[in-house]
């Protein structure tokens, strides 16, 4: 007797809880599989996992670190989710992030306003706007190319990432270098996003807590994206174009315009992430401000199944992996878990479309015994 797995197409809608259940199941399974791999190289997975936990959620300081790391992932993840919803494969989050950081920094570096006299709120308000403009610009380029000339956005966004990185490098090496280092001078305090640590004098508890206001941008953005997708006309148009562009055109929608708009919106969110990073974390424009947040953001969006609320949760999980990964040698362990998680979550989608049928096969494999077939809602 043997067993045979067979996938059968679902003829009815899957239950509402199933997507969440398969995602959570996939994440847990990823930890189990990673555990076996760690075990096979002689490590103790349980010890590593518990260390992961304490390193990321063990203290207020580390939790704040996790949220700081999660902030850019959240913003980029939201932008990616919106564009993926329309089946636009914007993977230029990295470049849009850098351009956002660059444009925001220009407020200080040029400077665009008098940094001595302008109130703080105006300075970083302007930085926010500039950051979003920078990101949106790097969304606009592939958007126009795609909408008007049907140039594949995967290629253009990917290539623009390099352009953005080296554009940035040019200015920090060439023009604004701080004594020859690959970074600009530290920004004046007026251009810093408020951090909890700034209030350590009043509240002892906050000392050393680096959490900055960027996370609020992220949360507000999540709410806005959720409203766009679920409540607004624009969200309806995005979903319709994403599902069937021909039907959308038949219904009188302007597809060209919407492609460009979605690209710009998506880019603006990544640009805002860049601004938050220079203004809230490093306080200068420098090399490698992103630890490939742009690409992780893509993964975050997929893991969250393009759901803005889930993007919040997933980006925190990823933030934790980044923070814990710093403390574990080799640091590849957290990438290992990330990779396996992504693989499993994406493959778990198969269970939304198919049911798993386990069939007992006898020795006489020629004659099946359909009576013995069990259907099982897998998981």
């Amino acid at each position: 007797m043997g067993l045979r797995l067979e996938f059968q197409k679902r003829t009815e809608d899957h239950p509402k809880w199933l997507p969440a259940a398969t995602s959570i199941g996939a994440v847990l399974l990823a930890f189990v599989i990673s555990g076996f791999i760690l075990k096979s190289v002689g490590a103790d997975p349980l010890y590593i996992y518990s260390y992961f936990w304490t390193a990321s959620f063990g203290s207020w300081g580390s939790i704040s670190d996790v949220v700081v790391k999660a902030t850019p992932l959240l913003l980029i993840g939201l932008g990616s989710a919106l564009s993926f919803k329309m089946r636009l494969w914007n993977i230029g989050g990295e470049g849009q992030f850098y351009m956002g950081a660059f444009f925001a920094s220009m407020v200080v570096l040029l400077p665009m306003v008098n940094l001595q006299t302008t109130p703080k709120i105006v300075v970083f308000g302007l930085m926010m706007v500039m950051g979003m403009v920078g990101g949106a610009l790097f969304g606009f380029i592939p958007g126009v190319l795609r909408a008007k000339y049907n140039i594949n956005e995967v290629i253009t966004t990917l290539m623009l990432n390099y352009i953005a990185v080296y554009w940035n490098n040019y200015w920090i090496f060439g023009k604004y270098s701080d004594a020859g280092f690959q970074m600009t001078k530290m920004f004046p305090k007026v251009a810093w996003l408020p951090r909890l640590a700034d209030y350590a004098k009043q509240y002892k508890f906050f000392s050393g807590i680096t959490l900055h206001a960027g996370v609020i941008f992220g949360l507000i953005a999540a709410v806005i994206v959720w409203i766009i997708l679920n409540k607004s006309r624009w969200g309806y148009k995005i979903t319709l174009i994403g599902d069937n562009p021909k039907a959308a055109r038949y219904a009188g929608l302007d597809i060209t315009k919407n492609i460009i708009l979605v690209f710009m919106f998506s880019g603006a969110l990544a640009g805002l992430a860049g601004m938050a990073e220079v203004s809230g974390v490093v306080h200068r424009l420098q090399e490698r401000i992103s630890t490939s947040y742009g690409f992780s953001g893509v993964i975050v969006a997929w893991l969250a199944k393009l759901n803005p609320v889930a993007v919040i949760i997933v980006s925190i999980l990823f933030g934790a992996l980044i923070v814990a990964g710093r403390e574990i040698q080799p640091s590849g362990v957290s990438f290992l878990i990330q990779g396996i998680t992504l693989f499993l979550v994406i493959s778990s989608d198969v269970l939304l479309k198919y049911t798993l049928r386990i069939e007992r096969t006898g020795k006489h494999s020629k004659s099946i015994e359909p009576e013995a077939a069990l259907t099982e809602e897998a998981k």
Partner: protein
Amino acid sequence: MNPIEPTTETFAVEMKDITLRFPGVLANDRVNFTLRKGEIHALLGENGAGKSTLMNVLMGLYKPNAGSIFVDGKRVSFNSPRDAIAAGIGMVHQHFMLVPNQTVTENILIGLDEPKFVLNLKKYDQKVKDLANQFGIQIDPTSLIWQLSVGEQQRVEILKILYRGAQILIMDEPTAVLAPQEANELIDTLKGMARQGKSIIFISHKLNEVTAVADRLTILRKGQTTAEGITLGGITRESLASLMVGREIIFNLHKQEQAAGNVVLELNKVSALNNKNLLALRDVDLCLREGEILGIAGVAGNGQSELVEVITGLRECTGHILLEGKNIANKSPQASIAAGLAHIPEDRIGVGSAPNLSLTKNVIMKNYDHEPISSDWRINYTAADLRAKELKEQYKIQAPTIETQARKLSGGNLQKLILARELSSKPRLIVAMQPTRGLDVGAIEGVQELLLEERTQGSAILLVSEDLDELLSLSDRIAVMYEGEIVGTLNQKDADINTIGLMMTGSLRGDSSCSPEEQTTPAQASAEEPTSEQEAVTTFTEPRQFDRSKIVPMHRPFMESKREDKQTDDEGGE
């Protein structure tokens, strides 16, 4: 399982007590089916009756929960279509699976072990040619698929199966995509193949066609056999229909005589290019009045699609298109919609609906930006759901809930959904392209009734159809298209199939006056237009001086696929 029962005859295929359960649905309920060698056996039934499911069981795509299958008297159990093909069974699907940029021969060789590495196409061209000649199929093995008509592509699909040595052919609604003449040719070919010993299963829900082609037939209704292997002698169409749908079908539509009203749509020297940049519409003049159905007849690919696209704002053109006096030529689809146009597209899944979205989201596709569905930037989904529920009720759309994805609806119900959306907007003009194609008898009746009702209400209806019976029973006037021109317009009283058939092949030209009673002169129409538009008209008085640079084919990058490869997402099945 029972041992092989002694039978007096060895059937090519024998399916016994096939039961297949999908969650919540009994798709096949103890179905019996036998196929004799060298016969054409029609499998008749409405959409969703379980015909395709039964054939998918035979092809090894589904495992039955119970029952047994015998091929040539031997019990078989297929795990995949590969096994079925090895056993000599092949299926021609409704949607062809061909590579447009490859030749006929290359398409036939796809997936075969032979040739192994070196491809001597010439040798295989000859092989294909010989095979085609053997069965009297006309095809040039070296032509590229995209150059072929739909009928020719179907021949390639048949050859593909024959080349693989199939003795048993399953044809899934083969005539649904063919013009009448092509359908007749196909039927001749099939009969020839049967004479040479091939056994053919012919899935259909068109009664007249089944009576023309089949030796025997099996009828399915709601997963059960209502007639098993009966011969056709002495059976009326009506009794077949009632076996199929379980009730009597009225074949006579109630069409009342009514006088046509004011002109709603007027086309004036409209020309357009097709996707291959060839002239597809040549100086088309048309007019259509309130309460009138104008049928457009023609063999597929003679400019009908382009005509519809031009009117609905999906394709650029030259000339004038006046809808209620407003020029809508070269405006956006939105302009046409705003001017009171409803469009029932040919491709229900690919164009008419968003397959993965809910009923609600499909219903509001054209009025999502109006009260009460939306105010300012918001969409009021409560109001939208309410509207969807109303329409679902009113148009009797059979779906579990309004949350159901459009792709899960059967063809007939999807068409009802589209009609509900389009007709509920109280349109002035309805452009319907093949509104009943691929639907079962019951659904066809419903669609036709709805169109007639709109006619009574005073809408103008442009009906493009390849089903001449439908055109003759619904239309007030019939315009025949041939190579992008309207070769003649007939009043319904004077129209007969022969005349139309001759006009469709370009061998007869008729009078193409706009309307019997009242003639609108082009001068009247253009008087309402701004002068710049008039210049455009004057450049078009001479049809041969067609300036291509004036019309750029509507290249919308987001729409990658050409018209030929109307890929429809078949997920969800029937």
